[in-house]
């Protein structure tokens, strides 16, 4: 039962990744793209979790932690960059 469900979940997550990528390329302003990037990072965290179940390697959760951390730092950095750009 689990492998079948994992296939469905892979499909749904890939679809979500595709939609977020469309917004990343089309996004009319830079904050839209940053929001899309953060959603992509969140989806990739889910992907890594599902892959950990698929392969049975629980160490992959460390990768998920690191991806979540980098996504947060990237969002903060982009926001600082946006606000700093308006003052000059």
């Amino acid at each position, binding site marked *: 039962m689990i492998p079948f469900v994992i296939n469905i979940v892979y499909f749904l997550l890939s679809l979500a990744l595709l939609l977020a990528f469309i917004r990343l390329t089309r996004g009319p302003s830079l904050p839209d793209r940053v929001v899309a990037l953060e959603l992509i990072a969140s989806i990739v965290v889910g992907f890594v979790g599902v892959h950990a179940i698929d392969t049975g390697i629980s160490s992959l959760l460390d990768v998920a932690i690191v991806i*979540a951390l980098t996504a947060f730092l990237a969002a903060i950095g982009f926001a600082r960059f946006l606000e700093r*750009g308006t003052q000059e």
Partner: protein
Amino acid sequence: MTDIIVSILLLAGAGFMLLAAVGIIRLPDLPTRMHASTKAGAMGAMFTMAGVAFFFADGVVLARAFAIVVFILITSPIAAHVIGRAGYFIGTPLWSGTIKDELRDNYDSQTHTLRSGYEDSPESVTLPPKPNPDKNP
């Protein structure tokens, strides 16, 4: 039994993430898109991590999954707040159907001071403190 719980949690997580992606592509402007992506995306990641914890049923994995959930729960609102604030200040256009923008009139984006909007109203009972109070009472 464990298979059923894990399957439900994984499907719920993937469904929430797909909803977040649909929201980010369908909604009209930055704050509504952020409203869809941050909350539903974080919910989806948390459901997936709950599924992982149930699947492995191990203390170490449970601790790691719990750490990821707590981290997402802390950082997702902060990132959303910071990006929304930056996006508002650099003048990202709102949706044409927006009917209320209280900050536009009351917030000075140069000095970052906020008025309540009721300083001059006759209904205000207590007078607001003056910015530069006189030395004489």
